[in-house]
């Protein structure tokens, strides 16, 4: 295998007494889309911002395109592009001015006109930043990340806070970049995003990577269980659902019972019988094939959005 474009080894970072990163290690190969999936506060942004050169690690090794983000300075910045989770531009800066300004900072330059067209911002070229919608701002952020045709692209929660339609538009753009074989490191807490866009995913929790692999590998590692979510008229006692046929795990989240079953038909029959015996009623039942959410649940006992 060739030399990885991004290499992270035993990265550690604390803010006061809070240990944000507790030994994170992974590698990203050229042309690969690698996702860091985890809940808020898991350490995703700390990791990506260390790789962008915005934060200094307490310990460990971080290397991007063979350069150390902490010491390579302006040379490093020529090579990378990034969409930050929290950033902005001056309100009275026009879209075309922003693109021209940032393009001018780099030696290797993309054509701002092509970027405007590609990100559907042509009609907004004269608009002030403050006049753009959330989706347009995010498209501009992506365009700005590509002004130097970067070797590596960092996307920190690129669709956070956007409505589903805009999110899908951003997915399409990232998929295009993926087809162009850009090396991308992406952080997200959306399962759908990680499953759809990433070649490989690292699940991060409490500053550590708890699982790593392709989405398919990770889902298979969840014992091939199907998730069954049920709402009942009355509460049932702890552990009773665990004893149903085929159930490997059951938990309750805000009135929804989540069962993981290796034999869904048998589990549903057993559930209906149990409810009849207990004079309880089934209000709703949904079945899901294994997802990264289930992997996270199995590994941490918590849901991603908690």
């Amino acid at each position: 295998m060739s030399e990885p474009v991004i290499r992270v080894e035993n990265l550690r970072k604390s803010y006061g007494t809070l240990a944000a990163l507790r030994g994170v290690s992974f590698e990203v190969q050229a042309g690969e889309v690698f996702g860091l999936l985890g809940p808020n506060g898991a350490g995703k942004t700390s990791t990506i911002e260390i790789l962008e050169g915005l934060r200094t690690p307490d310990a460990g090794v971080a290397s991007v395109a063979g350069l150390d983000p902490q010491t390579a300075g302006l040379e490093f910045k020529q090579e990378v592009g990034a969409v930050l989770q929290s950033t902005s531009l001056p309100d009275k800066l026009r879209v075309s001015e922003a693109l021209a300004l940032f393009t001018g900072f780099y030696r290797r330059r993309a054509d701002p006109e092509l970027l405007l067209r590609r990100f559907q911002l042509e009609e907004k070229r004269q608009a002030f930043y403050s006049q753009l919608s959330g989706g347009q701002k995010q498209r501009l952020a992506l365009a700005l990340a590509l002004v130097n045709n970067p070797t590596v692209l960092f996307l920190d929660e690129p669709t956070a806070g956007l409505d589903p339609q805009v999110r899908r538009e951003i997915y399409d753009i990232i998929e295009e970049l993926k087809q162009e074989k850009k090396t991308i490191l992406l952080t997200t807490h959306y399962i759908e995003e990680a499953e759809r866009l990433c070649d490989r995913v690292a699940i991060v929790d409490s500053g550590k990577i708890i699982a790593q692999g392709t989405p398919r590998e990770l889902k298979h590692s969840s014992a091939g269980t199907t998730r069954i979510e049920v709402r009942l008229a009355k509460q049932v006692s702890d552990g009773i659902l665990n004893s149903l046929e085929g159930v490997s795990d059951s938990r309750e989240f805000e009135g929804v019972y989540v069962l993981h079953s290796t034999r869904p038909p048998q589990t549903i029959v057993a559930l209906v019988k149990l409810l009849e015996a207990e004079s309880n009623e089934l209000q709703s039942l949904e079945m899901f094939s294994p997802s990264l959410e289930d992997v996270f649940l199995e590994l941490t006992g918590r849901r991603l959005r908690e």
Partner: protein
Amino acid sequence: MKNTWSLTKIRILLALRNKTFMFFGLIMPLGFLFFFVLIFGHGRTGWIAYILGAVLAITVMGSFWGLSVQLVMFREQGILRRFRLAPVGAGALLASSIFANYVLILPAVAAEIIICREAFHMVSWGNLWAVFALVSVGAGTFSAFGLIVASVTNTMQETQVINNLLWSAFLFLSGATVPLAVFPVWIQKVALFSPATYLAMGLEASTTGHIGGHELLEELIALSIGLVVAFEISRQLFRWEPEAKVPGKAKLWVIAALVPFLLFGAYESSFGNQLSRIQKHYQMLDRQTSSERAR
């Protein structure tokens, strides 16, 4: 240098699109001029040039205020961190702030000079080369002070408090609002330690045309050293990130920026002749006014 130039152009554009800048950068300085002429210059044409010098000093000193507020706002809004991702150094960003500020005060400076000459019948143009030199160096120095304020304050509120304190000291301890000559000698000596005094003294002497450019060397040197020291300190203390707080001790660097003026002040109060020059200048204007009234 190319990055500095690009950023300077954008900063100028952004300021021109900002109504607040138009008020504080153009309308307010002209308001000061009309107010001062109305109160102190009415029927005393000899004083118009002196008032012009004072108002020019206020216009130039005001540059520190807007700059510090804008930079802190950019940091709080996460705008600076976007620039941090690009191959742009802190030096280029800070230098562009100073250049943009300088260009932006020139219209107000020109308007003040022209209004004084054409509308208020200022006797002569004064020493315009000296005015140009002092405005240029002074704008740089006070902008650099603004950059230091932005670097050592963590929030907009802190910035406003420090700005208010500095602004009051600059205004009232420099001769820009009340002529230094009317203060007790000990206050005049204290004023010699303030950078604002060198700017106000120099501009007042230049607009009245009572001294040649070479006699302003001390003011120009003091302000130039202040500019270099303040710029370097601001570059060292500069922070891109809103979470990167400045430790309390670092705020003492503000004092380091004043060191050149402390040295000049110590020299002046022991061996210099600035205070006697101010006195003579003031008495001469007073005599002119008396003779104008007698006529």
